[in-house]
């Protein structure tokens, strides 16, 4: 890294922090008794988790007949939830991998929590295809293992199997990437802890010492993992979109699906990151590390991806009309004006219209507006998947088969329950691990701390001011005195 930092670039760490202060601030939530808001949040999350376990048990015991799926609409809330959660799971790797390759320093404030969110979202997503199989105890059939039935292999030409490989690879690689980043920070916790906590964090920190050679390898590993994760994250939602695009259902069989799904995934992922981080920065007093500059950057990504998604919606309509193919035209007419018109309105207003207020800088930097909008987008993106899945199936080729679908309480419980699962995991994570990458934030302090850059920079500081703005400037260092 040798990018010089412009003096007009906004600082990413406020409060003139020292290295020690950064450690104190970020580790504080892991070292004190849980705060009342955390406890309340955790109780609510675990309640929903219990609901999930109950509905899961109900589904497995009575079968998926307890859902309202029928022969016409055989994918409903289950696959909608799956695609929604996978989409949310895209922001973490995008922030940590793609923004690492692009040398975006603001990622250091949010990458840790975003990666955690990614992993938990993929865990939630993975539940749905598994239960949807009906006989979940047969789920291992999806893996190509030697068996006594021939051996009979899985169909490697099927997008559903590609999905199995994509999601499980994504989960594994995200976990490895996340944990590798966590190891030095666990060592920081270890070296401050006493008693049983020291033992636990010794185990978790893998014996990290901070040796220069280890840091060198750690950086090499992070960079290559980022290089691998970048095409991976794009491939995952591409393959999810293949589940639809390779079928011959009008409304699904379109070539625009992969880029459209990936943009939508980044869009919804960033919305969920904002929802979580706006709460976390308040709850854990991390406003100096997740600054308005971070929020504004994420809102810009939301504006761009939301607009791409909007263009995709309109392109779909145009291409349906332009194709001159009646079933295709009908599918899209039905999507907008059919029995599920309300979900189309929800999708359009939440995903395309509402983010447009982020053209205003004032709105991008308004925390309340950002929070409300992030919730809107989460809802809108759920509607998008519902629109694609349910409306398309509800009106198929044979009018005699047309149907309508609304979820049973079991399906609603499963969806609400995975939100409980997600927040339970996230709240536990926020208590036991530093929610911000401590070492990485320290490494940008000299180039992005407010005492070194921005309007409050102290130019008379010993190492501060103009002289040290170059990150890898090794020529101008002060060699003792």
């Amino acid at each position, binding site marked *: 890294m040798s990018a010089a930092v412009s003096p007009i670039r906004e600082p990413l760490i406020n409060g003139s922090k020292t290295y020690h202060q950064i*450690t104190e601030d970020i580790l504080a939530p892991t070292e004190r008794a849980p705060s009342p808001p955390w406890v309340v949040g955790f109780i609510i999350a675990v309640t929903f988790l219990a609901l999930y376990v109950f509905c899961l048990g109900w589904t497995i015991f009575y079968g998926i007949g307890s859902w309202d799926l029928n022969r016409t609409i055989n994918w409903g809330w289950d696959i909608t939830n799956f695609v929604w959660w996978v989409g949310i799971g895209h922001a973490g790797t995008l922030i940590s991998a793609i923004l690492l390759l692009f040398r975006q320093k603001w990622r250091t404030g949010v990458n840790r929590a975003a990666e955690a969110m990614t992993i938990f979202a993929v865990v939630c997503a993975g539940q749905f295809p598994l239960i949807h199989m009906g006989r979940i105890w047969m789920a291992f059939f999806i893996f190509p293992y030697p068996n006594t039935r021939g051996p009979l292999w899985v169909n490697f030409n099927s997008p559903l199997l590609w999905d199995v490989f994509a999601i499980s690879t994504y989960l594994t690689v995200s976990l490895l990437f996340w944990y590798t980043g966590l190891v*030095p920070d666990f060592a920081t916790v270890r070296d401050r802890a006493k008693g049983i906590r020291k033992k636990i964090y010794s185990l978790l920190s893998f014996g990290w010492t901070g040796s220069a050679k*280890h840091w060198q390898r750690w950086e090499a590993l992070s960079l290559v993992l980022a290089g691998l994760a970048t095409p991976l994250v794009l491939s995952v939602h591409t393959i999810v979109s293949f589940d639809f695009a390779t079928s011959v259902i009008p409304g699904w069989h379109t070539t625009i699906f992969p880029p459209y799904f990936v943009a939508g995934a980044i869009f919804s992922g960033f919305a969920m990151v904002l929802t979580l981080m706006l709460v976390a920065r308040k709850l854990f007093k991390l406003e100096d590390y997740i600054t308005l500059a971070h929020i504004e950057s994420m809102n810009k990504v939301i504006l761009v991806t939301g607009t791409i998604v909007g263009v995709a919606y309109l392109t779909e309509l145009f291409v349906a009309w332009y194709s001159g193919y009646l079933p295709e035209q009908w599918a899209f007419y039905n999507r907008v004006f059919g029995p599920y018109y309300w979900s189309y309105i929800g999708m359009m207003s939440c995903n395309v219209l509402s983010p447009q207020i982020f053209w205003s800088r004032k709105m991008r930097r308004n925390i309340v507006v950002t929070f409300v909008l992030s919730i809107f987008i989460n809802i809108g993106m759920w509607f998008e998947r519902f629109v694609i899945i349910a409306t398309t199936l509800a009106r198929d080729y044979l009018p005699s088969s047309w149907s309508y679908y609304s979820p049973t309480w079991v399906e609603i419980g499963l969806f609400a329950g995975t939100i409980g699962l997600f927040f339970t995991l996230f709240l536990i994570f926020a208590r036991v691990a530093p929610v911000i990458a401590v070492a990485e934030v320290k490494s940008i302090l000299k180039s992005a701390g407010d005492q070194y850059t921005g309007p409050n920079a102290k130019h008379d500081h010993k190492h501060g001011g103009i002289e040290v703005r170059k990150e890898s400037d090794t020529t101008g260092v002060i060699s003792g005195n």
Partner: protein
Amino acid sequence: MANTSNKEILYGVYDDEEDLLGAVKQANKDHLDIWDVFTPFPVHGLDPELGLAESRLHIAGFVYGAIGTLTAFLFMTWVFTRDWPMIFGGKPYWSVPAFIPITFEVTVLFASIGMVVSFYIVNAQGPGIQPPVLDDRITDDKFVIAFDADNSSQEQKDGWNSFFKNTGASEVITKVLPA
């Protein structure tokens, strides 16, 4: 007999990475043999000064990835052309484009797992491994240059002490690490 079970380390503590970088340069000029350098975060520009060769992890990653590519592609080829040929949608048995997504995923999977495992093996790190910690503040805010003081003469130690003093170390500590 030399002490084989314990290791004596003499180290200097710096408060800032720029002081550390300057000190490492000075150590090179003075031909001092640094045992190791410890920092709370990766300090850029340190590796060439310490004479650390570039990590070869990425080469290992490429090899693991190539193994993944071959494993996935050849396995699917074998299944669909030799072991159990089947026609899907009127396509040829050996339908290469349909194999691409899984080949890609397995490549990434092998490269990632292989590299991470290699990383911990070459670092001699892993769950349950806990080498003695030189100084608790290294993972917080201190930068450390350490010399191996085993079997060192008083003259050498004096040299290191004056080196630390001249390069702005805030503390100089001698510590015996259990093996």
